[in-house]
């Protein structure tokens, strides 16, 4: 059982341990490394060869590193293929800092343990129960299911159904807020149908706005409603996290995205903006957009410059803002647990 205490803020929980925020360099805050639709691992047609998965991710992370990237946040939560042991090895072998997330959602990606417990009636999990699960992943380490706890989660995430947040997702969002408050890690949420409304619901838990990231704000509907401005003015972080995606997929294209970013800086909201590509390094059991981790640095940064965004502003977007939001807010104890060491029930 390893136990140590953070002595100051400004530290980030990576899969290899605590790292000072300013050492994170260029950060992609909303990406997925291994993304497995729950259950795909049991399907005979899905190839789960771990050496191939490693090769793909290693190649993509190395490409990211060569383009000037330093840190990647895997924001897919605890039940979508997350393989923290693989991430540790990838981080060691590529030099890229990896921050793993805890969290669950959207509803359609949940499983029976959370939605239909063996009670009568089968009441879905409330916020406090989700918070209990997530807090442990930050404070005691990420679970390697039924084996051990590993390094800590550095962020808590959830996703709402795009047609509108449903009850169990509201429980998840509130549970994430409680986790953020208890542990100091940031809370990253993909809104449902209305970003500001979802944000207010989360803030009603008492979490400070600057600990909350609202993702998906480059969705067509959000841009039309100017939600990015409203969310930033409320003090939360705005993630324009579909760089490289376009109208066919329901998002504004890169030129419009660059203009939106320039406008946010003009309005003095630049320090609340985060950008990322929502790329999937290796997808199993689901379709995904074909985009590399280096797309943002190689393709999108020139578009930003063309749109009049200054080099200094780009540095703020890619380094200062993500470093600030990822830095853990409060001191907290980190300890480990293994299957052999956990309490017998």
């Amino acid at each position, binding site marked *: 059982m390893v136990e140590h205490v953070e002595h100051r803020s400004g530290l980030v929980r990576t899969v290899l341990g605590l790292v000072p925020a300013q050492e994170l360099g260029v950060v992609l805050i909303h990406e997925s490394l291994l993304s497995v639709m*729950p*259950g795909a691992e*049991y*399907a005979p047609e899905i190839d789960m060869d771990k050496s191939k998965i490693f090769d793909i991710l290693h190649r993509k992370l190395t490409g990211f590193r060569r383009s000037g990237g330093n840190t990647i946040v895997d924001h897919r939560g605890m039940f979508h293929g997350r393989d923290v042991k693989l991430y540790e090895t990838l981080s060691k072998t590529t030099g890229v800092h990896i921050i793993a997330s805890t969290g669950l959602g959207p509803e*359609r990606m949940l499983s*029976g343990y959370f939605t*239909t*417990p*063996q009670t009568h009636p089968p009441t879905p999990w409330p916020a406090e129960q989700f918070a209990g699960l997530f807090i442990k992943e930050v404070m005691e380490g990420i679970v390697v*299911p039924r084996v051990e706890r590993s390094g800590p989660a550095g962020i808590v995430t959830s996703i709402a159904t795009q047609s509108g947040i449903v009850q169990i997702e509201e429980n998840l969002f509130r549970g994430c807020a409680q986790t953020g408050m208890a542990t100091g890690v940031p809370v990253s949420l993909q809104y449902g149908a209305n970003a500001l409304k979802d944000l207010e619901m989360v803030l009603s838990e008492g979490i400070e706005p600057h600990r909350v990231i609202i993702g998906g704000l480059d969705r067509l509907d959000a841009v039309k409603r100017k939600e990015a401005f409203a969310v930033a003015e409320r003090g939360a972080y705005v993630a324009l996290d579909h760089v490289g995606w376009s109208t066919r997929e329901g998002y504004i294209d890169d030129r419009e995205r660059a203009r939106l970013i320039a406008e946010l800086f003009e309005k003095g909201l630049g320090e609340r903006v985060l950008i990322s590509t929502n790329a999937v390094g290796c997808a199993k059991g689901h379709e995904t957009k074909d985009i590399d981790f280096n797309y943002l640095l190689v393709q999108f940064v020139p578009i930003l410059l063309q749109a009049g965004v200054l080099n200094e502003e780009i540095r703020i977007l890619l380094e200062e803002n993500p470093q600030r939001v990822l830095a853990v807010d409060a001191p907290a104890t980190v300890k480990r647990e293994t299957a052999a060491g956990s309490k017998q029930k």
Partner: protein
Amino acid sequence: MGKVNTVLGPIASEDLGITAMHEHIGFGLPGCDLDTQWWKKPEEAFDVTIQKLRRFREHDGKTFVDCTGIGNGRDIEYFQVLSRRTGVNIVAVTGFVAGDSALPYFRNKTVEYLTNLFIHEITVGIDGTSAKAGAVKVGVSREGLSELDQRIYRAAARAAVKTGVPIITHLSTEPELAIDIFESEGLPLNRVLMGHADVGQDADEERDKMIASRGGYVGFDTIGYDKEMENAPYWSRPRQDRVKHFLSFLEKGFLERAVISADANCCALGWPGLKGHSVNYLFEEFIPDLRKAGVAEDVFEQLLVRTPANFLTMQEPSLKANPLSNNDIGCVPIIKS
């Protein structure tokens, strides 16, 4: 007589011996592995599981049908080791305990996909092993027989027709709808065990009679979930109510359509389990209860040996296509046995 798939390969039906038809090495709802409150030391889980299986052997138990579906803790390599170390035949199933415990990847799949998945696990192997499933598990979701449940039932029926293995259901609620699906796919009801008919809140003697008189098997297979037990789960029931329910079924002349099992976990995965409950309750509590009620010894031979062998023996695969099964024009073959 025929053969049955076990996790260590097919065996002769004659070799099944005393068989518990609906049991679990360990069951948990998908996702429970993420919650450390249920984690156990692997050596202790192994130890308690071996002890229960060994006691099952001491009762002359020979075959243990594990009804844990895909994603609910079914662990084929573990079953193989347990079988080798204890001498108990373990029959694994393909399928799902119910639609609401199917993982997201499988929820939107077509009947054709699910059929092929089940056939793959019955004829090729489970989870990359060569261990083949001996039955298909289907079941009713918590809110009732859902659209997904019905897709799984239909796929299971097609896989059963194609491969000759039987179907075991979790719950017997909404039996008419379930039976319609089986029959519309050309699966005779004597290939179906309608399970958990003895669950307290669902008990319905008219339904039992209907299933049995149409040739189906009726599962009294949550035996031991007695209200008298400490921390009994919601599906438990007063001990003597179950005994009476079962005796009443036998009195109607349905001995050959009756199945008994305990639905016990050797070592529960994502829930506390029921302390003190195991497959051995059948021998140590239930059969003595029946003896006390005057049930003759040869009845037990039927319940524990002959019926399981009849049911589990793989039928000649029916390779004939069933072109009517893709539409619902009401032109369904009614098969009576």
